[in-house]
């Protein structure tokens, strides 16, 4: 489950896909999903879980490394889990993705102004201030967070945490595009797999 690719500049590239999994909101479901990835040798790049507007369902957003394991196998094995209700696969270009970053940065009084202006440029927020460090919050597309992370690194990152991304399909290309899933159909039409 450990990420194999460094979260370097630009973040995960084309080899990463986003899988949005609707699951029953029942005890142990996350363990089932996580365990499946572990036992099949699939790599999770990031993972976010949250309730949906339907209180019987939760959504797990998983960014997977599709170079190390075929996306189709991941989707079909996931679909076998009884508690998985629906799966949407989002190619990066078809998804609206957002992620939240919290970082505590060294910022002695001499440098504090530069850090604050950087936060302003990225439309982030200062959420806590100490004598020689500040904590900032930034939400946005993962690549924007990567850029921000790189620019503040020279000031000294004390602690940094990212949530992993959440995603929904872009509106103009509504549903996911699944190549050869569910019976191996090569139908190019957008479809979902359950």
């Amino acid at each position, binding site marked *: 489950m450990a990420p194999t690719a460094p979260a370097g500049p630009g973040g995960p590239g084309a080899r990463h896909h986003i899988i949005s999994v609707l699951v029953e909101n029942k005890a*142990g479901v996350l363990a089932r999903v996580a365990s499946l990835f572990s036992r099949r040798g699939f790599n999770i790049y990031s993972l976010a879980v949250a309730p949906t507007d339907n209180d019987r369902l939760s959504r797990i957003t998983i960014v997977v490394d599709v170079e190390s394991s*075929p996306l189709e196998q991941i989707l*079909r094995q996931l679909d076998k889990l*009884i508690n998985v209700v*629906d799966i949407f696969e989002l190619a990066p270009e078809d998804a609206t993705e957002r992620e939240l970053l919290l970082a505590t940065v060294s910022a002695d009084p001499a440098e504090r102004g530069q850090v604050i202006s950087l936060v302003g440029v990225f439309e982030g927020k200062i959420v806590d201030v100490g004598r020689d460090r500040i904590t900032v919050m930034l939400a946005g597309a993962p690549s924007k967070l990567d850029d921000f992370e790189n620019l503040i690194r020279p000031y000294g990152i004390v602690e940094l945490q990212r949530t992993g991304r959440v995603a929904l399909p872009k509106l103009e290309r509504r549903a996911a595009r699944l190549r050869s899933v*569910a*019976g191996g*159909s090569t139908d190019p039409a957008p479809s979902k797999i359950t």
Partner: protein
Amino acid sequence: MKLTGAQALIKSLEMQKVEVIFGLPGGAILPVYDPILDSSIRHILVRHEQGAGHMAEGYAHVTGRPGVAMVTSGPGATNIVTPLADAMMDSIPIVVITGQVPTTAIGTDAFQEVPITGVTLDITKHNWLITDVNDIPRVVAEAFHVATTGRPGPVLVDLPKDISNATMDWYWPSSLDELDLPGYKPQTTGDPEEVSRAAELILAAERPVIYAGGGILKARGAEALFELATRTGIPVVTTLMGRGTFPDSHPLCLGMPGMHGNYTAVTAMQKSDLLIALGSRFDDRVTGKVSAFAPEAKIIHVDIDPAELGKVRRPDVPIAGDARLVMEQILEALASQGLGPVGTVPDTGSRAATRPDLSSWLDQIRAWQAEFPLTYNQEDGGALKPQYVVEQLRDLSPDDTIVASGVGQHQMWASQYWQFNHPYTWVNSGGAGTMGFAVPAAIGAKVGRPDKTVWAIDGDGCFQMTAQELVTASAEKIPVKIAILNNAYLGMVRQWQELFYAERYSEVYLSPDLPDYVKWAEAMGCVGLKVESAEEVAPAIEKANGIDDRPVVIDFRTDAFEKVYPMVPAGAPNDDIIVGPAEGEGGR
């Protein structure tokens, strides 16, 4: 009607038409054992929980109905983990009920507490921890539905003691709509376009082979397979899990492929231009080195589990669906492309009318069969050959005898030398390779089919793992028959050490006399017999077949040096098949 959770559980099992529970009580499951006294369901008290699990599997193998096992929490539950893993690998529908410590004690490291739903997460098709007594009937109905539909498999229901003791208003889900399984919708019929493409490939193939697996048995599809093979004239290999799907006596049957498959079955697949995989999963023991497996073959892959399509080998025509239903669809598609039932003439102008003639392919197959039959040599007065024992068992027992086996050399000889002419007569641990499977699985099979003769062909190593269940068989009057092919070794491991570790034998010797199998059998209430030479074989088998009031164990002292051939070394291409000892390193 008010019922306790325990009563509701037993009543739910009755509603599922469960005839028999294999189990062993303990603290956490105690409440559920009380209403068993008032139930129509037979309970068979095992001597070890692993036995209960394998009995449930054996029962499911031969009846097609789910086997049910019930055990207590903690070690009771962990003892049934191996059967769950076994059933998961071989897609056997079993329902295991485990007791659990009270909900108030869960997570406190209570006495006999094991988080069994967590432990079995990856080796069950699904499992449930019941936390509300009102859920019991619905969850039991869900458990049976999940176990028996789609790709069958094991399920586990964990029932805390306070839930068993609580009361509820009885109900029974009257339809599938009342189950809470929003994400479970197995697909059973194949995509018509893919089915039509499959029929086209079948009618265009020059060297086709049907690769028939255990999925056909789960789908009750042996009749459809017979029609498909005979109508198309395509030869059939039957995998270890699929033995009996197509009768060995039929001229189109090539027998078992794979690591210890016969030369013709292995080579026909290698040289084929079309493999029609039906309920089979391109297991590594069948394919050998995947990149060198059947290199010229197009693949039609029919499987109820869409995840199997392309998992190992990319199919040209993937069809997700029930093997029986898809075969019936393919038969219809063949008819619409001009190939009707046997005896009808292909419609002129149809695809079937211009179909390649398979006779040179079948001639080639006959030539391989003539040149490379399975062989062994039972010399007069020489050491008793295990293959000879299997052949004698086969010839002296009824044609529809059920055969169970453990795992190892004896399993391969049983599969190679028995003639499986009927489906559901071969009970075996394929994917998991569980030593000790044979004795309890045979008992479960005999419970499911008391009208049939049930032989377990076991190894001496395997027998020692689960033999205590013969006490269960004696106590419950389940007259199974056990043939131990006693070569005093962990034979398959010994074979690998001989061939691949320069005859450096490490920890494989068991001794032929320790234990004394005859005395052990007698101590367990069985008839015990010992056979040391070829001429004693037939009389002992006939004697055993004449005993129907108790189990029989025959200790056959077989040649320790005999090896299983043919053999494709692990990871090697199937073209590297070693036919016999003369070719094998260090062969005798």
